[in-house]
């Protein structure tokens, strides 16, 4: 059992290193982000305690996934499997329980701890087997697979826009648009296997052009309900609405090109910093897009057998 946890630590350290961090620094950074984020949430909403519990459960549900617990059962036997799972869930809940205690929410802390131990004794299917319909079937795959993983975001964003219009809060509509933008950016955060780039009978340029056009079309399709709502109810602010749409599109291009400029690796820390700076100072995007484009062209030349 001890070996199992040592191995988990080694694997986590490897992942942190792959992300470009020294493991100790990585853990410290996660802790700082966790503290700042929880302070922010408690400051912003009275529902923060529920959010804290929900996030903790979501991590624990992942650990209770059927195939994972089956593996533990077949490798360690029932008794040790239960011990491992209880210990894992206890480790996961420590920061969340500490957070609740820190906020004097003792009852919630006890409930969270008891639930964490109980969840450890069960296993769940974490993936839905039925096929979620999408409007992106004709042009797989980023929006198609991404939409299915994040489908619950879209009714939420559209509902927020409707609420925003209802209470005359234009900013809430813009926030919904940003929510969709951030969600769609995540579709391009992981590189696909080389086969799925290689298989395209394209040149590097035509491949990137195709990717960017499809991403733009699909992004606009998802934002249309919000756009229509805002343009109808806030016609005088049409320039602001279109500006945010345009910024969303530019960031989408940035992330598509950033992905292929690091390909076949994941987006490196350096690209991540460039994107972060661009978010802080958006005019930079005019330099960043051509930079990532040139880098992507050079990077993909080998796969596309491009001589130019």
């Amino acid at each position, binding site marked *: 059992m001890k070996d199992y946890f040592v191995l988990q630590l080694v694997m986590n350290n490897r992942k942190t290193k792959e992300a470009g961090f020294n493991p100790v620094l990585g853990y410290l950074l996660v802790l700082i982000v966790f503290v700042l984020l929880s302070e922010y949430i408690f400051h912003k909403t009275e529902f923060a305690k529920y959010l804290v519990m929900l996030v903790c459960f979501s991590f624990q549900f992942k650990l209770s996934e059927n195939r994972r617990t089956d593996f533990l059962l077949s490798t360690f036997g029932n008794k040790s499997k239960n011990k491992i799972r209880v210990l894992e869930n206890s480790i996961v809940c420590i920061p969340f329980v500490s957070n609740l205690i820190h906020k004097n929410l003792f009852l919630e802390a006890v409930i969270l701890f008891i639930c964490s131990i109980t969840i450890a004794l069960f296993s769940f299917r974490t993936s839905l087997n039925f096929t979620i319909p999408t409007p992106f079937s004709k042009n*797989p795959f980023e929006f198609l697979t991404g939409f299915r993983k994040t489908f619950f975001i879209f009714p939420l964003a559209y509902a927020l826009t409707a609420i925003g219009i209802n209470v005359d809060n234009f900013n809430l509509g813009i926030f919904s648009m940003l929510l969709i933008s951030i969600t769609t950016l995540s579709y391009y955060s992981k590189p696909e296997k080389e*086969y799925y780039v*290689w298989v395209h009978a394209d040149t590097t340029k035509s491949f990137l052009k195709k990717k960017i056009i499809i991403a733009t079309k699909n992004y606009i399709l998802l934002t249309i309900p919000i756009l229509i709502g805002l343009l109808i109810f806030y016609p005088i602010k049409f320039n602001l609405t279109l500006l945010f749409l345009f910024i969303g599109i530019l960031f989408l291009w940035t992330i598509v090109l950033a992905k292929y400029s690091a390909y076949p690796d994941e987006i490196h820390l350096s690209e991540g910093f460039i994107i972060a700076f661009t978010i802080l100072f958006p005019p930079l995007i005019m330099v960043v897009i051509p930079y990532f484009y040139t880098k992507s062209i050079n990077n993909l030349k080998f796969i596309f*057998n491009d001589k130019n």
Partner: protein
Amino acid sequence: MIKIKVLSKSYNSNEVLKEINMEFSRGKVYGIVGENGAGKTTLFKCIAGLESYNGEVLSDVQPLKNYLGLLLTDPFFFSKITGKEYLRLLCNARGKRNINIDQKNIFDLPLNQYASTYSTGTKKKLAITAILLQENEYFILDEPFNGVDIQSNIVLTEIILKLKELDKIIIVSSHIFSTLSDTCDEIILLRKGEQIKSVQKVDFKTLEEEMKEITIGNRIEKLELK
């Protein structure tokens, strides 16, 4: 035609392919055999252009990769993509649109289910269907018969023979010798990255015996089964 000239491939100091020279003609089926680690998959990836190499790979239509249907040993599928969407993705990639996918579903695949939920054999059949729908000129099939049921293996053998009739080039690797002897015109033996020999159809039986002899040797006796 596909011509491989003095192709070598190394990972650091480990040379996995050593000066390979091969020529594949249209309307013929070629088998590549060899033990695990002989270099078959690396050779296929080099021909496809998925791996860098020293030497030359020439073909009568250029670029070769745009006309090549490549079936990998263990095809990867995205987690939330259905069989039909996978076929569409691979057809779109080659500019083949408006294909009647349902009509061409010859393996009766559950096309509206997520491909990641398919069994190993069904995944392979999906990947094979995809490269067939792409209407390629060349085919590289790495272990196409592995994990596929007997009925589908019979269909697959017929498909390979049909492709041959259509003047395509088909290169197949398989650990099941009978599947190769049924379809191939020539079998090339690789061992530790070296091209050991090429054998024509009339000599397949001798090759099979030779391979048995080399592979089995006295290993069974060593086990001292009781």
